[in-house]
């Protein structure tokens, strides 16, 4: 019988690999009877859904802009490339 700590590890692993038969049975039964781990599984799904919906915006922050000095440096480097 899985305890909740073990179950949450399988809930997570289930997102990254195929659980083997014994793991699937054990987790399936645990989720049937444990609403907290069911909620945990749903929460992981919610997080994934939020990320899929806003992934591009997630990591674009106001502070994540190239500073003018950085742009200049990059532009200067690009101009060093030999002409066609």
């Amino acid at each position, binding site marked *: 019988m899985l*305890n*909740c*700590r*073990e179950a*949450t*590890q399988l809930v*997570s*692993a289930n*997102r*990254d*690999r195929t659980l083997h038969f014994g793991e699937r049975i054990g987790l399936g039964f645990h989720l049937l009877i444990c609403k*907290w*781990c069911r*909620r*945990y599984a*749903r*929460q*992981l799904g*919610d*997080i*994934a859904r*939020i*990320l899929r*919906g*806003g*992934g591009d*915006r*997630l*990591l*674009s*922050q106001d502070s*994540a*802009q*190239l500073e003018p000095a*950085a*742009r200049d*440096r*990059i*532009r200067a*480097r*690009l*101009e060093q*490339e*030999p*002409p*066609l």
Partner: protein
Amino acid sequence: MQSTAQSDPAVWLQRHGDALYAFALGRVRNASVAEDLVQDTLLAAFASREGFRGEAAERTWLIGILKHKVIDHLRRRGREVPLDEQHDYPADVEDACFDERGHWLVDVRDWSRPDRVLEQDQLLALLRECIGALPERLATLFVLREVDGMESEELIAELEISSPGNLWVMLSRARMRLRACLEEKSVQPGY
């Protein structure tokens, strides 16, 4: 350098520089590394511009190149500073969430309750904060897996993770920490 207007890296820099930089920064967490990756991407794109026939959006194409650059960087860094052992990331959040018999010690809330619904933007902002609070390696793996959709096999191979078990434990710890952080930061009054 001479180039047509359609394949001018300076134009790419102007149009896509910030987006590329944000993408890189979100995965390498170091401003000057992120800058270098943007530069390398634009140089590589210019070198391979003949192969780009505009099938995808310009930005999508550039991000694709950048993704490879990011992975290369992470792989090199992983060789310098091996960071993928389970003991590098203590299970302190798990220890706080479960008792010695593995039962939940904390309440696992129902996020679907109407009084608990947050706006998408609020959730994204909280997620951004909470991902930022993760140890760097855990954050990187989580983002590559859940935002970029890299499969386990890919991650293990590309980042030279010593054992698949380590990857899955690290992702599990990242998720457990994220969940706890989100719950903590999204406490609604009257719950």
